[in-house]
């Protein structure tokens, strides 16, 4: 495939808007993930399987990315849609697509910060509705107006980027040969370490630390697929929690009498 049609570019823009606009059933937890929006982008460009594979690879960087307290470290929706579109049009392999998608994701945070700032305006419209007692109109301030704005800020630039970017992809590809391509592939291969490390910040604590290395060694020497590894991990976690809570329960009964008096005082 060597060119995106205007209709396909517009559809890509709409997918990005749906992914980051946080609309019903799509967005936030589902379409925003490159695995999902990559597959849909692939569908638009006529190759959903390739789209899912490339989107899934791009998604490795954003495994544990959190949008907490209104912050957004990277726009994975834009990285997923444009990264997949460019990869399919240019015939890139998944690792190169990933290296290309990451800077796109950083660019996308501008859109996010812009929306978070401008959306404040609509809250005052809602304040106004409340003062007038027109509660049934609040949905306009909460959904309709901000989503029209969001559409202009997301769908249009993304459609333009998909259309014009893919026209130049051949030129970029010519640059991506030999040493430069190898460097892109190395970067793409290292990048998933970021997604894993971010996830580890929340779960690599105390007693669970050793299980990272257990999972690593099990995967190295068994070659099991992740689904099987996940089931084994679930069983290991259940057994471990059961055993440790049994031990804790025993410890409590053994020391129970000594602690009773203190408890009573606290209750007062």
């Amino acid at each position: 495939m060597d060119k995106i049609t205007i209709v396909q570019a517009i559809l890509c823009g709409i997918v990005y808007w749906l992914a980051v606009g946080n609309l019903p059933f799509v967005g936030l937890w589902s379409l925003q993930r490159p695995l999902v929006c990559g597959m849909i982008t692939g569908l638009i460009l006529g190759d959903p399987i390739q789209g899912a594979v490339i989107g899934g690879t791009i998604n490795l960087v954003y495994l544990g990315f959190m949008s907490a307290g209104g912050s957004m470290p990277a726009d994975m929706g834009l990285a997923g849609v444009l990264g997949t579109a460019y990869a399919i049009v240019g015939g890139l392999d998944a690792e190169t697509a990933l290296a290309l998608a990451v800077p796109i994701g950083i660019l996308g945070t501008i859109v996010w910060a812009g929306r978070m700032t401008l959306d404040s305006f609509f809250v005052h419209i809602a304040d106004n509705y409340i003062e007038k007692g027109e509660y049934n109109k609040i949905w306009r301030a909460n959904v309709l107006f901000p989503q029209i704005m969001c559409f202009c800020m997301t769908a249009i630039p993304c459609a333009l980027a998909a259309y014009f970017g893919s026209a130049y992809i051949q030129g970029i590809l010519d640059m991506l040969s030999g040493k430069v391509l190898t460097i892109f592939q190395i970067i793409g291969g290292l990048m998933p370490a970021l997604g894993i490390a971010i996830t580890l910040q929340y779960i690599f604590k105390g007693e669970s630390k050793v299980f990272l290395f257990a999972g690593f060694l099990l995967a190295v020497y068994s070659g099991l697929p992740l689904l099987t590894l996940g089931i084994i991990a679930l069983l290991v976690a259940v057994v471990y929690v059961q055993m440790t809570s049994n031990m804790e329960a025993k410890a409590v009964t053994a020391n129970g009498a000594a602690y009773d008096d203190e408890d009573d005082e606290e209750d007062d």
Partner: protein
Amino acid sequence: MEEKKTSIIPRAALIKAWLIWETFPQTCYNYERMMGQVVAHMFSAIINFLYKDNPEKRKEVMRREIEFFNVHIEFGACILGMAIALEEKKSMGEDIPAEFITNLKTSLMGPLAGMGDTIWQGVVIPILLAVCIDLTRSGSGNVWGAVIYAVVIVAAAYALSYWNFMFGYKAGSEAIMDFLEKGILNKLIKGASIMGCMVMGGLVVNYVKAVCGIQIVSSTTTYNVQESFLDAVCPNILPLGMTMLVYYLMSKKRWSAIKIIGLIVVIGIVGGLTGILAY
């Protein structure tokens, strides 16, 4: 005292309120009130059942419910259920100060957001994604991983938030506090962390790629560092080292994700140009 009705909000309106919360929580996410407006949008579904003959009181409810609010959507749903229950009781004549409702909301917001983000975005989504990405890339590739991920995560989000919302509505604030203090949740987090760590260990092996390209050429043989040394010690030791380095820089040195991306690009360029790293 005469028998009082326990509820004046019909179940259908309550479900509509929950649907608004779960469906539009971030359609107008903003720095000023965060999710405050969504709470007002949600209350617009039930407000007409409160203070039937007192529009001024209704307006007061709406004014205080559009104030700043921010929480994890699914885990924080119980706060909204609770807020509706409290406003309902207040409108039926129970002596509940308005500040009490606002304070309760803001004090529960923090712990539930922290816990929700950790479990949901830190454990559930990464594990599900990891398994589904692996599924998608298995064989010559397929779309099932993407489809399964999307269906499972949306179903889980709606189910969890519905259950949690109704729990908050029926059980009230004491039950939420009680639940937060009980050990069940700690066990859940501990188990989820163990499972998450194991899956992440497997992910390092499958998807982080770092290969040493150094070859030591002598007159008789070529010594390949990756194959003859690193693989003999432990295969995939470089990807593990790289992951632990990034983890160390982020958690101990407080590096941001953008800084890490910059570092990876530099490592890639230097490693690629010198031939220390290969693909």
